[in-house]
C-alpha cells in the first residue's frame, strides 16, 4: 500500500533474521519470553554499527567541532559535517538545509519560535514574511501529535494569530472536503503530519501542499513517522520545513533534524543563541552566521550526529523501498488479524490506505493499559495510552488505545504472537464479539 510493494521484493524471513542479529537488544528475554518489540513507533532499536560509530568517535576523535585548530578538532568537524551531508542527502535535502536539533519536537519549536521572533521584529526586513499577527491563521489537523500542535497553539497565543484545524472523520482520516473551508487566504502556515503515529495512515501530502501553495501559506511537515519507514524526498514533496527524530530511525536519542528550504532558513532569525552561531558579538548585539550554523547554538550533538549518519547508512544498505515493502506486509497482517478478534476496533481501520506497518485499537470494555500488561507478560512490547495525540483519541471517542508498530527487524511470527496475545486478553476479560 505504500506504492512500493508491487515493484520491490520484500525481504525473506532469512534476511530479516540476519538483520535481527545486528540488533543486540532484540535477543533479550522479557518476563521469560523472547522479546517481541512492536514499539518502534515510539523509539527504534539500534544496530551494532550505530553503537560502534558512537564509541569509535569517543575513543578516537572526540573534540570540540567548529572551534580550534588542533588535529582532533579538525577531524571531528569533518566527520560531523559529513554526517550532516549523509542525512541531508537521505531526505533529498542540501547540506545547509539540514539543522541538527535534539529531537523532532525541538525542530518544530524552532520554526514556531523563529516565526515568533520575526513577529517581535527580529531578523529585519528579510524576516518580514514570517511575521504573524491578529487576522493571520495557522492551520493544523486534528490528528497531530502534541509536538505538532502545542508549539502552534503557543505561537498563536504569542502573536495573536488564530489556530484552526482540518478535522478528521469518524473513520479517522482527514476530512479533505473540509480542508477547503479551513485553508483560506488568511492561512499563513499549514502544519501536518506525513504519517499519523496513531492510525498509521499516510496523509495526502501533495494535495495538502497544493492547497497551501494556492493561498501562499508555508508548509511544515511532521516527518517523524515517515522518514524512518518510507523513501522520503522532501524536495520532491515540496514542503518548506520538515522535522524528524534520530531515535525513531535506528539512531541515538538526543538528536533530530529540521529541514528548511534554503532561502527560508537564510531569511529566518535565530532561535537558540550562544556560541558557534555568530560572526561578531559586542556587549550590545550579535551578528549571526548563515544556516545551518545560525540555528545550532552551543556545543553540537557530535557523537549523536555521527551515529545517526551510521544509522542512515544502515538503512540505505537495506533500502528504504524494501523496508517499506516489508512493513507493508506486516501491517496488512496486523490489520487482518485484529479484524478477527472479538471486540477489537482498529482506529482508522475503515479508512482507505495507504498506511505504514502500525495499528492502534480499542478492545471493548478493556483498558489499553490492561491489554498492554497482558502482552508485556508474554514479552510483547507495545505502546498503550494516548500516544501524545489526545485530541484524535477524544475525536474517536476514547481516552487511550493499544498500538503495535513494526520496523525492518520485526517478523511475521512476532505479529502472530501479538495477535494471539490480544485474542487471549480479550478472552481473559470476557470480551464478547
Amino acid at each position: 500500500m505504500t506504492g512500493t510493494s508491487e515493484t520491490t521484493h520484500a525481504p525473506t524471513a532469512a534476511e530479516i533474521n540476519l538483520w535481527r542479529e545486528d540488533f543486540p537488544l532484540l535477543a533479550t528475554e522479557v518476563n521469560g519470553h523472547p522479546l517481541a518489540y512492536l514499539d518502534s513507533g515510539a523509539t527504534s532499536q539500534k544496530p551494532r554499527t550505530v553503537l560502534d560509530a558512537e564509541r569509535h568517535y569517543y575513543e578516537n576523535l572526540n573534540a570540540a567541532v567548529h572551534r580550534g585548530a588542533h588535529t582532533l578538532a579538525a577531524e571531528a568537524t569533518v566527520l560531523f559535517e559529513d554526517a550532516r551531508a549523509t542525512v541531508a542527502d537521505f531526505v533529498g535535502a542540501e547540506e545547509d538545509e539540514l539543522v541538527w536539533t535534539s529531537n523532532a519536537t525541538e525542530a518544530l519549536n524552532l520554526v514556531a519560535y523563529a516565526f515568533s521572533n520575526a513577529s517581535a521584529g527580529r531578523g529585519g526586513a528579510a524576516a518580514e514574511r514570517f511575521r504573524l499577527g491578529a487576522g493571520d491563521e495557522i492551520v493544523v489537523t486534528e490528528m497531530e501529535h502534541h509536538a505538532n500542535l502545542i508549539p502552534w497553539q503557543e505561537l498563536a497565543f504569542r502573536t495573536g494569530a488564530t489556530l484552526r484545524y482540518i478535522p478528521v472523520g469518524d473513520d479517522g482520516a482527514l476530512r479533505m472536503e473540509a480542508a477547503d473551508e479551513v485553508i483560506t487566504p488568511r492561512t499563513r502556515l499549514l502544519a501536518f503530519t506525513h504519517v499519523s503515529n496513531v492510525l498509521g495512515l499516510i496523509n495526502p501530502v501533495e494535495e495538502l501542499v497544493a492547497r497551501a501553495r494556492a493561498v501562499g501559506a508555508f508548509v511544515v511537515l511532521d516527518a517523524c513517522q515517515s522518514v524512518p519507514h518510507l523513501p522520503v524526498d522532501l524536495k520532491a514533496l515540496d514542503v518548506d520545513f520538515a522535522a524528524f527524530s534520530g531515535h525513531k530511525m535506528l539512531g541515538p536519542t538526543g538528536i533530530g533534524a529540521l529541514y528548511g528550504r534554503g532561502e527560508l532558513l537564510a531569511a529566518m532569525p535565530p532561535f537558540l543563541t550562544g556560541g558557534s552561531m555568530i560572526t561578531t558579538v559586542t556587549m550590545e548585539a550579535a551578528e549571526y552566521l548563515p544556516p545551518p550554523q545560525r540555528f545550532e547554538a552551543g556545543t553540537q550533538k557530535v557523537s549523536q550526529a555521527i551515529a545517526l549518519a551510521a544509522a542512515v547508512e544502515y538503512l540505505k544498505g537495506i533500502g528504504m523501498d524494501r523496508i517499506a515493502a516489508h512493513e507493508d506486509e506486516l501491517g496488512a497482517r496486523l490489520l487482518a488479524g485484529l479484524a478477527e478478534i472479538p471486540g477489537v476496533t482498529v482506529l482508522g481501520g475503515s479508512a482507505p490506505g495507504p498506511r505504514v506497518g502500525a495499528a492502534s485499537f480499542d478492545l471493548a470494555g478493556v483498558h489499553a493499559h490492561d491489554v498492554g500488561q497482558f502482552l508485556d507478560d508474554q514479552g510483547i512490547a507495545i505502546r498503550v495510552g494516548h500516544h501524545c495525540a489526545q485530541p484524535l483519541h477524544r475525536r474517536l471517542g476514547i481516552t487511550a488505545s493499544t498500538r503495535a508498530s513494526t520496523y525492518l527487524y520485526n517478523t511475521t511470527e512476532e505479529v502472530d504472537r501479538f495477535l494471539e496475545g490480544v485474542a487471549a486478553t480479550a478472552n481473559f476479560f470476557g470480551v464478547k464479539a
Partner: protein
Amino acid sequence: MSSSELQNLYQQVILDYSKNPYGVGLLGRAAGQSHQLNPTCGDEITLEVHLSGEGADRVVERIRWEGHGCAISQASASLLTELAEGLTVEDLRTRIDAFRTAMQSRGKIAPDEELLGDAVALGGVSRYVARVKCAMLGWVAAEHALVEAETR
C-alpha cells in the same frame, strides 16, 4: 497462558470490582473533593469524602467517586471506598500511608491486611512501577479531599 505474577496482579476480586465498581456517582456537598489525573495515560478521578462528627472524632461516612481508568485503578478506588466507610479521618490517613508504602516498595513490602483489608489484593501492583500510579489514583484523591475538608 499468563504468568502467575500476572494472575497475582489481576486477582478475581480486582476483575470483579473493575467490572462492578463500588461507590461510583458524585453526590455533591461533600466535606472535601479532589480531582486527580494520571499523566501517563490521561485517566482521571473525581472523589468526594463525606464526613460526620467534629475534631478528632470526625468519621468518614462515605466516599463517592467518578472517573475512568484501567481495571487496577477502578478496583483500587472501589476497595478504598469500601475500606474507608466508618473510619476516623486519622485512621483513613494512616491506611493511605500504609498503602502508599506498600505500593512504592517495588515488590518488597506486602500490604498489611489488618490495616488494608481486601485492598491487599492490590499487593502485586508494586512490582510494576508503571502501574503504581493506577493503584494510587483514588487514594491520592482521598488524601487531597481530606486536606480540603480540613482547610475549609
